[in-house]
């Protein structure tokens, strides 16, 4: 989606044009799903987060500053939602059981992708289970989503130095895990 098209869609969406907003959803939902899945390691939670993110986007579109990158703004909303979920007591780091994987496979036509997601979720969960929610957020943004530190700073509101120290600690923890394997 190029910048001028996106600007037009945002302007129309601000005027309650749901068709325009649908195009924004279609353009960005995979990106947000990828981020949420890598952070939460659970398909259902990731999908819920995508929904909540776009509802927040729709509600707060009038506050969006067009001088900033739209993807950064939408990432910030999704990251905050993921952080809330990671901090909540309900969130668990339990592995996907075979039953859950089977249920996912039944409910989808794309079996291959569903199996890949389940395995990927298990690997990321195993590696990052000992990270704090903030470490997990910066780790995912930097190493899995490959976002630059300056942009992570804009997304999370953390200073670059704090991001670097969180990344350092996250790497150490994960390396220790790898040594055991």
């Amino acid at each position: 989606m190029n910048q001028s098209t996106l600007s037009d869609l945002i302007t129309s969406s601000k005027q309650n044009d749901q068709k325009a907003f649908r195009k924004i959803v279609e353009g960005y939902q995979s990106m947000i799903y990828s981020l949420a899945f890598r952070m939460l390691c659970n398909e259902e939670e990731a999908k819920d987060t995508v929904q909540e993110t776009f509802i927040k986007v729709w509600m707060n579109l009038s506050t969006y500053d067009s001088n900033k990158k739209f993807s950064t703004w939408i990432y910030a909303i999704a990251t905050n939602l993921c952080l809330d979920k990671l901090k909540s007591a309900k969130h668990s780091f339990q592995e996907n059981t075979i039953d859950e994987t089977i249920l996912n496979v039944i409910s989808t036509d794309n079996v291959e992708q569903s199996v890949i997601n389940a395995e990927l979720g298990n690997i990321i969960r195993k590696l990052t289970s000992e990270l704090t929610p903030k470490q997990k957020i910066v780790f995912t943004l930097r190493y899995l989503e490959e976002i630059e530190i300056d942009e992570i700073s804009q997304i999370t509101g953390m200073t670059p130095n704090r991001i670097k120290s969180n990344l350092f600690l996250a790497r150490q923890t994960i390396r220790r895990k790898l040594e055991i394997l």
Partner: protein
Amino acid sequence: MKVMENEEERLDMLLQKLSKTAPGLTDAQMLTEKIMQRIKEKAIPRKPTILIWIRAISCSAAILLLGLFLFQQNETAAIASTPKQSGRPEIRINIDSECLKNINSPASNMMALYMCHLQQNSIKNKLYKTIDQQLKN
């Protein structure tokens, strides 16, 4: 040291592979529909800009009216106190109108009181002007 370097390399390799393997949405179309449905169902209350403007204008108007009222009150008081300060003879004016009776009546409403007040003010002003003319003459 070499073991550590190897571990770092392994970690980098793993992270690179993980970043290249993006989780995919198995039912993107359905998710879009759900999002749009939730937006339609909720009829999400956008912060209505028009309402904000109406509120702001009403507030300003109320403040302006209050200010005008207070200003008018002060002016009346100033006029009443002027003869004393300037050494002119004190003139007391009694206005016995129907309006004043209404003021004391418990049934009278705020609007009637205010209208009465304006009426009184205009009578007072006329009287002051007449007296002022007379004094000048």
